[in-house]
């Protein structure tokens, strides 16, 4: 992770894309506007002084407390956090990019929120995005082949959402 100078270059190249940062965290991270994620990643991979040529991992973290008693005590609003772990092979440094999404598109439960795909930046993102779509329910716009990867194609719901409920029955197989 490079110092603030590196971030200033990013802000200069893409004004308004970076909306937050925490450089004191265990893994320092920058937060970007979700609709700019593909532009930021393309800049980081192709134009940045440290070329982040490898995508290690894409994760979605569901910030939602289904228990209303506990939900009253939490300090955050329900949202979905996208976490991108990047790695630079020449410089051997890592970078964490985050983006916050609403839990559902237009607040309609069951409608996955949308974020631009980074498949055009790293081809390896293809399967990672399919996995996030499958388990966490995020729609990656511009993905060439977005369908479930681990669960069966006719599976319903997104298992890694905190309010997910295991189906009672799947093709005659008892669920719980």
């Amino acid at each position: 992770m490079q110092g603030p100078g590196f971030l200033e270059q990013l802000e200069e190249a893409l004004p308004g894309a970076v909306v937050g940062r925490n450089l004191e965290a265990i893994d320092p991270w920058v937060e970007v506007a979700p609709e700019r994620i593909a532009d930021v990643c393309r800049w980081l991979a192709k134009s940045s002084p440290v070329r982040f040529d490898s995508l290690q991992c894409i994760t979605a973290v569901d910030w939602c407390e289904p228990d209303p008693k506990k939900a009253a005590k939490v300090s955050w609003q329900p949202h979905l956090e996208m976490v991108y772990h990047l790695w630079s092979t020449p410089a051997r440094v890592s970078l964490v990019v985050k983006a916050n999404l609403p839990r559902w598109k237009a607040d309609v439960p069951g409608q996955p929120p949308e974020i631009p795909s980074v498949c055009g930046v790293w081809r390896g993102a293809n399967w990672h995005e399919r996995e996030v779509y499958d388990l966490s329910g995020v729609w990656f716009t511009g993905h060439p082949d977005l369908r479930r990867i681990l669960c069966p194609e006719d599976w319903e719901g997104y298992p890694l959402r905190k309010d997910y409920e295991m189906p009672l029955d799947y093709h005659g197989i008892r669920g719980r």
Partner: protein
Amino acid sequence: MASMVDDDPRIIEFDVRTDEMLVNMGPQHPSTHGVLRLVLRTDGEVVSEVEPHIGYLHRCAEKIGENLTHRQFIPYTDRMDYLAAMNMNLGWAIAVEKLMKYQVSEKARHLRVLIAELNRIASHLVGMGAYGLDLGTFSPFLYAFREREKILDLFEEACGARLTYSYITVGGLTADLPPGWLQRCEAFLDQFEPVIKEYHALLTTNAIFVKRTANIGVMSPELAIEYGCSGPVLRGSGVDQDMRRDGEAIYTAMYEGYAFEVAVMKDGHYPRDRDYPAVPADAVLGDCWHRFFVRMLEVVQSMDLVRQSIDRYSACKGPLGEPLKLTEKMPAGDAYLETECPKGQMGFYIVSDGSAIPWRARARSSSFSNLAVAHELCRGCLIADVPAIVGSLDIVMGEIDR
């Protein structure tokens, strides 16, 4: 010129174009390393597209991780890469320790190196033996399992299990080694060292093996990096990267003071390559042969590391230390850590809300990224080369599907 056309089967095949056919390989095909299904689009013998279908072994490990404390999750990491369960335990344990800013004792550190490197040998032996099976030779598999059995015996003595160990855990290890274990381990290494020559005679220099692997499935370093490949698959393409040397401080500190050279070709030479068979004339950097050879070199490298760690471990006077309590609370925050497992870089990402149970437990699998590149490598190859290419990636489905 005519002879060149004869040599390249693809040119002949394209002369007589046949109807495209979809061939289903797996999920129970013996050469797919577990329940992997490949759908091949073929034109005669030539494969035009390969589509892997995964998920047959999905066991919701990440969801389970959100319902257990950090230490209770250790047995589930065993079942990810079940051929290198010690390395999986280690990856999760260090990721949690990174989040908790916890440092294990010096003795535990050396014991971890010892155990993890011994498991790397076992995993590469399976990789080598199973690769022989993929290519139609049965004997190397038996030779490999004969030695692996001895490593499993050592593990059984140390922790009671032969496959899913849960030995390395958050904050240290569950138990110290039994008396006399180090001597038995050294005896194994002394006996194992000359055996490696047999493996090179059986596979590395075997004319049929070289014909089946050299210049097959060539992967450029750029392609490997873009797909996030790691481990021997990445180093087989000539990229000099090993998390034990290049990783994060908390992980590289474990190997501090250890002498090892990353098994990667530099200026046309592998480290210490005078001890090993020469690279065949047909082999190209990034092909199946090089991926296989990097694994064979890492077996020797790991043996060296085990020897070094035995010395250091026995020189440690202090106590091993107790692992953390099952319900020890983690600070709020998140941490991501990649460790160098035998199959590649295994990453664990933990998000904590301040309790002992992770809010999110994410496992980034090396085999997942390594398999994702398979369709690029198989484009235009022969059907018989598909097992050779997929086998050279040395994947484990338990880790891909989690």
